[in-house]
């Protein structure tokens, strides 16, 4: 039990838990309407009513940060799921069946890995145009090769084990053996990867939204809030500071939790 009481696990879990709570709450309740503009309240100071003040269109900053959490978390979760499904399938099939299929999938994978991830995402967005689904697709494809590599590596070592041979000897089909016995063995490394990936995706999505290639306004994301706060940096630095702190909290949570899970699930790497 003591091994679960690590500071990284607790702090990381608390940070991510807080972000998730905010993201879910924002679906049902925010202190004010996050998209309602009021030009008489432009860049208003913090007050009892508007805790962090208002932005350049007079919208409540706290409400927008909350909706931003909801957008960023949903986009990141969808992206991670897509990357896991795609990369997982490629890794499982390639690693298990080997042969020409593995070589073809491997060549595709290596080509995708030959691009820096964000460049691949930018190229795909050039084709898809900026939208939440464009981001999910672009980042999902950009992160899938990493998943495929990790899964394939694990499958390669698992497929030689006795219980896999036993499953085949019992007359189970290859596909049954693959999904019933091999796939579950990849859960530990994939969980560790998915946790850190969640952080990278939040970072990439906010970077792309900051550039104007992500989720388009008036929908709030932390990235596009940062971009629109830039002209008011001197007047109202809080508009720039707040969204960045949210991204950093999310990332720190994912990094700490990822480290803790790696130590827990993969004792070989524990330090």
């Amino acid at each position: 039990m003591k091994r679960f009481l690590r500071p990284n696990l607790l702090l990381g879990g608390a940070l991510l838990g807080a972000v998730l709570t905010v993201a879910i709450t924002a679906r049902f309740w925010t202190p004010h309407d996050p998209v309602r503009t009021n030009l008489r309240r432009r860049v208003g100071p913090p007050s009892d009513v508007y805790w962090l003040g208002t932005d350049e269109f007079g919208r409540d900053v706290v409400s927008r940060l909350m909706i931003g959490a909801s957008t960023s978390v949903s986009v990141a979760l969808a992206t991670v799921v897509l990357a896991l499904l795609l990369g997982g399938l490629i890794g499982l099939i390639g690693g298990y069946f080997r042969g020409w299929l593995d070589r073809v999938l491997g060549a595709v994978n290596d080509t995708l890995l030959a691009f820096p991830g964000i460049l691949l995402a930018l190229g795909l967005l050039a084709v898809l145009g900026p939208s939440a689904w464009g981001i999910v697709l672009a980042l999902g494809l950009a992160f899938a090769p990493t998943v495929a590599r990790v899964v394939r590596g694990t499958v390669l070592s698992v497929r030689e084990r006795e219980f896999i041979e036993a499953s085949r000897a019992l007359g189970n089909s290859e596909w049954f053996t693959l999904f019933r016995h091999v796939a579950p063995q990849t859960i530990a490394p994939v969980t560790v990867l998915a946790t850190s990936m969640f952080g990278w995706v939040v970072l990439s999505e906010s970077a792309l939204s900051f550039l104007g290639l992500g989720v388009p306004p008036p929908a709030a994301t932390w990235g596009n809030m940062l971009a629109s706060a830039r002209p008011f940096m001197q007047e109202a630095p809080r508009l720039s500071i707040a969204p960045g702190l949210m991204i950093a909290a999310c990332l720190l949570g994912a990094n700490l939790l990822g480290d803790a899970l790696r130590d827990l699930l993969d004792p070989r790497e524990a330090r």
Partner: protein
Amino acid sequence: MLAYLLRRAAFAIPTLLLVAASVFFLLRLVPGDPALLILGDQATPESLADLRASLGLDRPLPVQFVLWLQRVLAGDLGTSITNGEAVGPLILDRFGVTAAIVLVAVALAALIAVPLGLLAAWKQDSAGDLLAVGIATLLLSIPSFWLGLILLLVFGLWLGWVPVVGYVPFGEDFWTAASYIILPIATLTLVEAGVLIRMSRASSIEVLRLDYIAHARAKGLSEGRVLLRHVAPNAFAPTLTLIGLILGNLLGGIAVIETVFTLPGLGRLLVDAIFARDYPVVQGVMLFVAAIYVGVNFCVDLLYPVFDPRVRAG
């Protein structure tokens, strides 16, 4: 050694070809007619047909690819739709700014992070180690573009030590030019140092556990000598791979930093081209950056055996 070299080269060349093919076909997925895009409103059916023929767009796709590849290999990346400039020189011109910032920042980050990681590993679980890991994890979690904004706010707006917006080429005035790129360099150095400290520490810990280190200590070598002569070179090899990946990543992907500091770099060129739907430029930059990425990783592979002789045999 030569066999190792050839093996790596034999891997890099097909990768580059596949990269070129995927860049070419990716941008053919864009809906719409490239000829119409180039000519815009002034298009007539005749001029469209002429342009299609001169661009080779009336030929089958595989033929188009081969023709395009021939031109690329001859150094011709086409011309920009927005301003008619040749894409190749445009890229090289913008690459200078990006390369200067990235190379200095990564070198600084490595100089700080590698020894720090080694020391942290040596004193594993001490207060100093915890502090180093804590700072590294914190740096790793700060978005670079946000850190840039904060540095700009503090040193540019509040303290007034550096100019806030703009860029001066190094050829004009060295010190003014330096004052414009000092903050972007500081930002990248801090962010990348975080990743590198963790990597250097992790690989040093791995090496410190090996038998030959115990052997070196048993021979009565001083701790300093053990660390410098026996741990550092071997622990540096995996860190070097990471440095290569970071370098490749940053050389093409610091659009956000260039946006924060309004620098005319390669990343900004790509993003502006995406907005302007200037596909020859998008295609050119993607190919250029991917080629650099593959090239940098190839160089790292070549350097790797220098630090870790086991690779040569493998």
